[in-house]
């Protein structure tokens, strides 16, 4: 009988590069930047790392195929390095690989690293993906983009709950305003200017009904984590351990796209989060989750995700958002304390690990101006793909014994 991952693995070091338009750096430099911080934080030698997992999404425009770019950039001592790619969940997948490797007893210490170098393609937004969707799909799939794919969710969400689009847009605007306020407090964030709801609502339209400020930053960056067992962590002299409480993944099987779905929620997130709470021993997430970093690729994604994380009731996320429940000091569950994808930025393969980095800093009381009071559980969430067909990963980490 599976017992889950709770408290079997501890994070002993984390690192995260400056996110942003890193015109003068490639993926190699970004990885070294994150790794150097991570190794120092862990207080171990590079040679203590026995295996690594690497997440990166757009191999076509970034690092290229295989895990060799990590091994070469970090000059790892000919150890096992595995490349994982699962859309926007790639970073969390790398973490999952490293965590499971340690939990299995196969390795004592493992590295998870993610990187994405997006600003080498010559145009805004994510890289065009028509050639990356498969030889059959490229012959028939609609001419869609990431913002368009998620924008559709707003139309069906509004229709489902009989909401005026202006109401939904205002809630979406608040989501972005909140993230900008948080990002302004974070020196490593890509976008650091606070914005007003009016600015958000008056921005140029990208994909109806999403405007520019409803979309997250397209950034370069890398983040990583070193994991081991709690026993080894203690033997290394580590105190106040941050341990992994849950790791869940859920993938669409075509039901939303081709069978039965109202276009009002994320089927996968709903399932993965419920399973993660069970794995972590959390009964009432609205009360017990201290903070979260969710996949706010677009404001509407974050809005709807609040319901699929079983924190806002169905159809009530706009109210909670407008009540400030997810604001940094709103008295609820602070969401995106580091600025989120929206402002910290979204180098895809690094994002899952970047989210864990913020949770890790918060749990250790090292989050500076953003520091929350005595957090116990931090949840991270990635959603790769599109509302109708996606990969969802959930991680919960927390203080050992919490």
């Amino acid at each position, binding site marked *: 009988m599976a017992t889950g991952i709770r408290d079997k693995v501890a994070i002993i070091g984390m690192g995260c590069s400056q996110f942003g338009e890193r015109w003068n750096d490639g993926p190699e430099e970004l990885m070294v930047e994150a790794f150097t911080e991570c190794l120092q934080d862990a207080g171990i030698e590079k040679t203590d790392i026995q295996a690594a997992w690497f997440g990166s999404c757009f191999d076509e425009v970034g690092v290229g195929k295989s895990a060799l770019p990590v091994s070469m950039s970090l000059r790892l001592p000919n150890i096992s390095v595995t490349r994982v790619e699962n859309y926007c969940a790639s970073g969390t997948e790398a973490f999952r690989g490293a965590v499971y490797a340690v939990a299995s007893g196969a390795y004592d210490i493992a590295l998870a690293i993610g990187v994405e170098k997006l600003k080498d393609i010559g145009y805004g937004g994510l890289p*065009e993906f028509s050639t990356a969707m498969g030889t059959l799909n490229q012959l028939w799939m609609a001419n869609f983009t990431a913002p368009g794919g998620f924008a559709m969710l707003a139309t069906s969400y509004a*229709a489902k709950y009989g909401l005026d689009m202006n109401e939904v847009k205002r809630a979406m605007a608040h989501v972005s305003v909140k993230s900008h306020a948080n990002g302004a407090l974070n020196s490593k964030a890509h976008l650091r200017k606070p914005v007003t709801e009016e600015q958000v609502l008056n921005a140029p339209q990208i994909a109806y009904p999403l405007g520019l400020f409803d979309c997250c930053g397209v950034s370069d960056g890398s983040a990583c984590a070193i994991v081991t067992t709690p026993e080894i962590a203690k033997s290394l002299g580590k105190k106040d351990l941050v341990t992994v409480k849950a790791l869940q993944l859920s993938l669409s099987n075509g039901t939303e796209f081709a069978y039965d779905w109202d276009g009002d929620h994320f089927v996968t997130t709903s399932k993965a989060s419920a399973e993660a709470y069970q794995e972590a021993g959390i009964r009432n997430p609205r009360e017990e989750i201290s903070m979260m970093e969710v996949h706010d690729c677009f404001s509407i994604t974050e809005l709807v995700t609040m319901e699929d994380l079983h924190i806002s009731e169905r159809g009530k996320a706009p109210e909670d958002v407008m009540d400030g429940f997810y604001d940094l000091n709103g008295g609820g569950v602070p969401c995106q304390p580091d600025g989120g994808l929206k402002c910290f930025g979204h180098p895809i393969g690094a994002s899952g690990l970047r989210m864990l980095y913020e949770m890790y800093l918060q749990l250790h009381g090292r989050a500076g101006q953003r520091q929350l009071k005595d957090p116990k559980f931090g949840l991270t969430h990635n959603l790769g793909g599109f509302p109708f067909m996606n990969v969802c990963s959930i991680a919960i980490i927390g203080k050992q014994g919490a």
Partner: protein
Amino acid sequence: MAGITSFGGYIPRYRLSRMVIVQNMAWYFPVIMAVAGGEKAVANWDEDSVSMAVAAAYDCMAGHDRKGLDALYFASTTMPFADRLNAGIVAAALNMRENGVSNADFASCMKAGTTAMISALDSVQAGSRKNVLVAASDQRRTKMATMFEMFYGDGAAAVLIGGKDVVADYLGSYSINCDFVDHYRGQAKEFDYGYEERWVRDIGYGKVIPEAISGFLAQSGMKIGDFSKVIYPCYFGGTHKAIAARLGIEKEKAQNNLQAVCGDTGTAHPLVMLVSALEEANPGDKLLVAGFGQGCDVLAFEVTEKIRDMKLRTGIKGSLDNRVDLANYQKFTKFRNLITADLGIRGEANPNTSLTVLWRKRKMLLGLVGVRCKKCGTPQFPVYPTCVNPTCWSVNDFEDYEFSDKEAKILMFTGDMLSPSVDPPAIYGLIAFEGGGRTMFDFTDCDLNQIKVGMKTRMSFRRRQADNMRGFTGYFWKAVPQVEGGGK
């Protein structure tokens, strides 16, 4: 016995007022002011002769079994492929049988449509085929500020030729073939090259059409007065009238050349005008139709009682009624690729089409054929080997299921400014078909501000990509939101 057993038509939704052309281009060539009246039908940027032929063919086949077709003849001078049977693309879009059918392209001449009809009628009369679908379509590109730009419109028509339940009996035909070159389009040339209009009017249309019609009358022993409608294309209004006068055709019996509402649709035009006449015809009416181009074909028909049993269709009248002004001349020139506008780096991606995939998935990609699970009855698209119904999940237990003629409802949608498009925003969404099945499609022939969740859609076969590097044109189906009242 042979004749027309069904008919249908398709005129694209956009109409360009000739005055708009004049306002934009008369500074360059003031002569176009002389023909500034009326409007012309303009194919959307994702339409071409093949896609319009498919629309006309579906319209024609309403109420008829597409599996019963023995041949499909496609007539056009603007076929996307010089070597690949264009009729084969139309046939695949109709999900026609592949075995025991003989499809063919009729090309290179304005009268190819009527010639295809004669061939179809001959083969049905000979008893070698029972049902032959003839689809004619043209979408001719014209240089800016030319008379061709003023005269030409885009459109398609289709007639089903058979021996059973004939709505218009075939009374015979007569043809003249001569190498009269009023205009031509050389190999790999983009535009027509035309000769002096006065000569084309007097020695071409004005002489050849009357000669051919007189020839038919002499051969058949019939009189011009026997016909309730005489149908012949001629975009010169004065010449059109002069031909009627010369042949003794009463004014109201000369079928309108549709210049005012649609323009000359080239190879399709004799069929477009014929379908237009059939839409108004009564049992007992005799129709004479002529196709002009390097000679002239003349065919005669007599409408039967069966015309009253025909299922309602969009036809030429219905498509003419479904109109939206294309008030922006630059948009028209961009649709026809006459001007260069930047699609951005994002629009550069140009993967080749896997011909092995296209072969393996031809029913899906061209026919919009999905499957229905034999166990649980769920229609589904796209097709995976395992049933999508989570309470079923049976494997490979399917039968073919056509989505091309199913209505659907919009579940979610957007208008995307980031996606590279000739006509931004790129509008697309997830739609749910009546009777089951759903998937995401590009939308076309619509305005973003008119679309709502829950709105009905109908499917339309469209050009998906025109790969100029390799000369390949790819097709798929798009959803057309059904705005109440047909748009603006």
